């Protein structure tokens, strides 16, 4: 019996080692963990994730260690005699109820703290309404009269058709590229209002640490603030099953400097057709134009 177990174990070990060898050679194998991200929140969330992970490792070492110890030390084949008097122990039961409770409390405190930070939506500087459609995103810079759709880039869309014959490896950013990315400035608290036109979608950019559902007839909000100096392209996807092409409505966010953002926004208002291109158009004054104030207060 143990001989069988041993053969099988060594077989497993070989299988694992064998599959490990090519792993090292390939860059993509390194994608094992959550990205740290580029926002204040994503870093906190990542830290929380790692804390939880190490707690689980620690508990795992204890529990699995106990199991393995028992399985090795008390083998019948090694002549182990059962201690049939050992049936319960109130002391032990108390210990392994109380200690987990304490650990859980220790885990919950930083989680609650981060959660409160996430829910603090004060002092946002830009509001963008994001609307999920089957199967694309619509971005509306509130108060700026800048709005556009963002759909899967054509190269990906052609390659992803059933039997297209195009090798996805040959398409740059396959399924992660759009025609018009969302453009936001760095170091700015951006508020995203989420809704949907048809079914429920979810807006998720892993590097920003946040995901929230876009629900028809409902407005949800989330915020992010990309750290200064972290300009660049960040990619995400729809995360809530929304029908046939759920897998084909990516999100691309282009983070630019505040100046570039102002220029881009002005260009947009002037009717420039390439939203992603921030470099051209000498901008007019881009201070937000708010329409006339409301009818006189009547209170």
């Amino acid at each position, binding site marked *: 019996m143990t001989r069988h177990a041993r053969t099988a174990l060594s077989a497993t070990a070989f299988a694992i080692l064998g599959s490990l060898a090519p792993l090292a050679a390939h860059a993509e194998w390194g994608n094992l963990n959550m990205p740290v991200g580029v926002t204040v929140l994503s870093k906190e969330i990542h830290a929380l994730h790692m804390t939880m992970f190490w707690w689980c490792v620690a508990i795992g070492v204890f529990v699995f260690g106990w199991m393995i110890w028992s399985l090795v030390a008390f083998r019948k084949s090694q002549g182990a005699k059962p201690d049939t008097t050992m049936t319960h122990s109130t002391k032990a039961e108390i210990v392994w109820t109380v200690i987990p409770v304490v650990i859980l409390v220790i885990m919950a405190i930083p989680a609650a703290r981060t959660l409160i930070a996430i*829910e*603090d*939506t*004060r*002092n*946002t500087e830009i*509001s963008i*309404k994001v*609307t999920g459609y089957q199967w694309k995103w619509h971005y509306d810079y*509130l*108060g700026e009269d800048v709005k556009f759709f963002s759909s899967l880039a054509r190269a990906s869309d052609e390659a992803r058709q059933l039997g297209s014959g195009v090798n996805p490896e040959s398409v740059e950013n396959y399924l992660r590229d759009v025609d018009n990315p969302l453009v936001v400035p760095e170091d700015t608290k951006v*508020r995203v*209002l989420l*809704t949907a*036109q*048809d079914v429920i979608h979810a807006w998720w950019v892993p590097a920003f640490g946040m995901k929230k559902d876009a629900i*028809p*007839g*409902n*407005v*949800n*909000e989330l915020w992010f603030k990309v750290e200064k100096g972290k300009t660049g392209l960040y990619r995400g996807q729809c995360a809530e099953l929304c029908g046939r092409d759920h897998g084909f409505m990516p999100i691309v966010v282009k983070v630019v400097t505040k100046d570039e953002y102002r220029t881009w926004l002005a260009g947009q208002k002037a009717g420039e057709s390439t939203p992603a291109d921030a470099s051209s158009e000498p901008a007019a004054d881009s201070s937000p134009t*708010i*329409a*006339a*104030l*409301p*009818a006189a*207060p*009547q*209170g």
Partner: protein
Amino acid sequence: MSEMREQNNRRLTLRLLGFAAGAFAFGFALVPLYDVICDITGVGNPKDLLRASNVQAIEHDESRLVTVEFVADLPSVGSWEFRPVIAEMKANPGRLYEIDYVARNLTGRDTVAQAIPNVAPGKATAFFRKTECFCFIPQNFAKDEERVMPVRFVIDPNLPKSIDRVTLSYVFYDNSTRVAALN
């Protein structure tokens, strides 16, 4: 099997069937309960936004300004035009304001439409009071008619301090998107 046991079994079976029937009813009871829980927990029930509130004599809070954003959505593209006249404003809690939404019927026929309101963040819902709104009743629109529709609202001064920005959003559903009887 003894008769006694048979009887016991039958009794327990019926009781459990009754329990199951009760659970089925409970499933439906969750619908009104959902609203009640929203109200009790102060989450705010969006359905309250469909009713006029009485806002006589609320004290102004001149020292505080809350940004109010106005958003308009349509369930389908092209058949309507629907937008707020202004995108956002600053409001003193306790003060009554009036703003307008504009809708134009491009469906090519006379129709009825109903606006469904929503407030973000959700917990501001209970503090967003409206004395008048085009969303209280379904709106009749002639073919190609354009109409300005007012909303009058007050933000309750008890709005939690953690909120400095409130979004009022409407989705405008017409007959073709199935307006159910709301009352």
